[in-house]
């Protein structure tokens, strides 16, 4: 049998390890953040910013979620209530056991981003994967240039990670935070409008700047158009995709775009790489 074992370990990549949720935080009416630890209080694994974890609620199902943050002894995932499984997730109480396997996928091109100014753009729950990179940049603040964070949510109550977005991040050194909501509300005195138009309004300069972009598909599409119009190069805009996944290891077949698998070759792609693939996003 002529097969090349690229992986030296004998681990079963489809077998999750039993972990527990130690904290549940209600971010918005339909988004919760789960802090996950192994049963003996350790970190399940150490992901790089942008990587994914396959989280399973035993007896209900499993799905791929981006890892929004990690600490010494935990990882965090933020989950929006959209379907059956995520509805069940929102019933979770701290202490519940879940299965976790990962980390999967590639990650944001840290080496490429180092030494450059970065513009982070997030829309809605799309800020979740971006946040892992933002946190990384803050933890290694000296290795990066000026940081801009532009975040759009439907309304004030839909802003995820309010403490970070509204309080913590604006205080960080050499960092500008722009927040916009789609609809005005009485308790919101910030900018109102959609992300793509806000990008143009602020008028970011493309020189020496890289963009990390994530949000709903239509926002990614329109924001990319705005960015390209403003002179950004396709190679300088990275985005992260989401498709239905089952195995997470590039075997089960469904998350392909052309010959690439989002779970293995992605989820992070530059716009230039996406251009090479069939239009099936």
């Amino acid at each position, binding site marked *: 049998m*002529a097969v090349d074992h690229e992986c030296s370990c004998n681990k079963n990549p*489809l*077998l999750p390890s039993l972990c527990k949720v130690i904290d549940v935080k209600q971010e918005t009416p339909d988004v919760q953040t789960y802090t996950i630890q192994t049963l003996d209080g350790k970190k399940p694994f150490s992901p790089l910013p942008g990587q994914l974890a396959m989280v399973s609620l*035993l*007896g209900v199902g499993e799905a791929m979620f981006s890892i929004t943050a990690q600490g010494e002894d935990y990882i965090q995932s933020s989950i929006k209530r959209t379907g059956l499984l995520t509805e069940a997730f929102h019933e979770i109480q701290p202490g519940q056991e879940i299965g976790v396997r990962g980390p999967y996928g590639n990650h944001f091109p840290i080496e490429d981003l180092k030494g450059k100014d970065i513009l982070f753009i997030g829309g809605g729950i799309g800020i979740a994967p971006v946040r892992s990179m933002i946190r990384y940049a803050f933890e290694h603040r000296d290795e990066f240039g000026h940081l801009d964070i532009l975040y759009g949510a439907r309304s004030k109550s839909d802003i995820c990670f309010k403490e970070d977005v509204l309080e913590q991040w604006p205080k960080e050194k050499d960092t500008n935070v722009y927040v916009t909501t789609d609809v005005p509300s009485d308790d919101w005195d910030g900018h109102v409008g959609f992300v793509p138009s806000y990008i143009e309004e602020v008028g970011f300069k493309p020189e020496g700047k890289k963009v990390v972009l994530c949000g709903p598909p239509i926002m990614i599409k329109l924001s990319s158009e705005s960015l390209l119009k403003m002179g950004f190069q396709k190679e300088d805009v990275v985005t992260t995709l989401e498709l239905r996944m*089952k195995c997470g290891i590039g*075997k089960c077949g469904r*998350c392909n775009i*052309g010959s690439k698998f989002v779970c293995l070759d992605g989820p992070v792609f530059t716009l230039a790489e996406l251009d090479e693939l069939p239009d099936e996003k």
Partner: protein
Amino acid sequence: MILAKKDLDQALKILSQDAVVFAPLITLIEDKSQIDQPAFEKKFMPYHEGAAVGLDNFNTVKPPKDVLFPNVEKLYKYKTGEGAYIEEIVPEDKPKILFGIRPCDMRSIDSMDKVFFTKEYVDSYYAKRRELVTIVAMGCMDTQRTCFCDSMGLDPTYAPTADVMMNVTKSTRTKACPVTGCTIPEDDGSYILEALTEKGKALLDKISSLCTENGAEEAVRDVSCSLKIEKDPELDKKLSKMFEHPIWDKITKGCIGCGTCTFVCPTCYCFDIDNENYGAEGCKYRCWDSCMFSDYTRMAGGANPRPTKKERLRNRYMHKLSYFNERYGETLCVGCGRCIENCPAHLDISEFIEKASKVDAEAKEYSEADFAEKEVR
């Protein structure tokens, strides 16, 4: 080595002693009401004494892939709530012999090896089964009308990656079976066996007492497929530029969106992972899935990147003929013809290959009438 046909059963009996031998067995489907004619089914099943082994004639409807990649495979058991656990279910470690698969099916196993063993992760369930399997491939003696493997670059009489290659010797003549109408040997011809790997040698050692050394016998190697198709050798590259081509609209119209083609395909390896619960306990299993189903790519919330059969069939054909080439360097269609024979809507991948080879990749319009003169078989 030479094995007389009459000794085949004896050989399988010996091999069954310390392994499960999966061979294409012909079974009668019993219908005690005797309404219908008795139906025969040919399927790769564990050999037992007295079983009718059908090595010649038509291939099985279901490919032999489920010996390595079962239709349903339990991955792990779990319990939720109090005393929660996750416990791996390890495949049984009994050696298996896959006996008498055709070169097309052997090639499909090579493709599956590439999928499950390479690209960063090794699928441990598949790996475990694969290691325990010894494959005896059987060169085709005659081909069905839907066979086109030689147009896809295969040799219907030789499978270079098998553990043992088995061919009939030239003297064998056949006649029609008075009961089933199948072709059966007229005389006791023989098989010529050649070990291609160490595993194969070990297998042949077990039955060496039944065999004689090669004499003047020659293997039947002058078999060629009845279906010849004109395939552009660069079709994979051409197709990658044809994603928006109007041909897709036309050829997918007749498709009914079932999963027959994917389940009878020896190379389709996509799977789904699901669970079945019994109270707080349950087990996670994986099972064959089909890219032709709507829920294959549908995401939570209802968005679906492939909403209609056009996108789904396009993805299937592109995967077989272009994406897989790009990723693993070979075409995923081996030309076994199963999907052509079994498609409810009589779609024909070979017809698509021919048409896609001929059309202009840049064309904005496409009409079936351009291919009006059809070859009728």
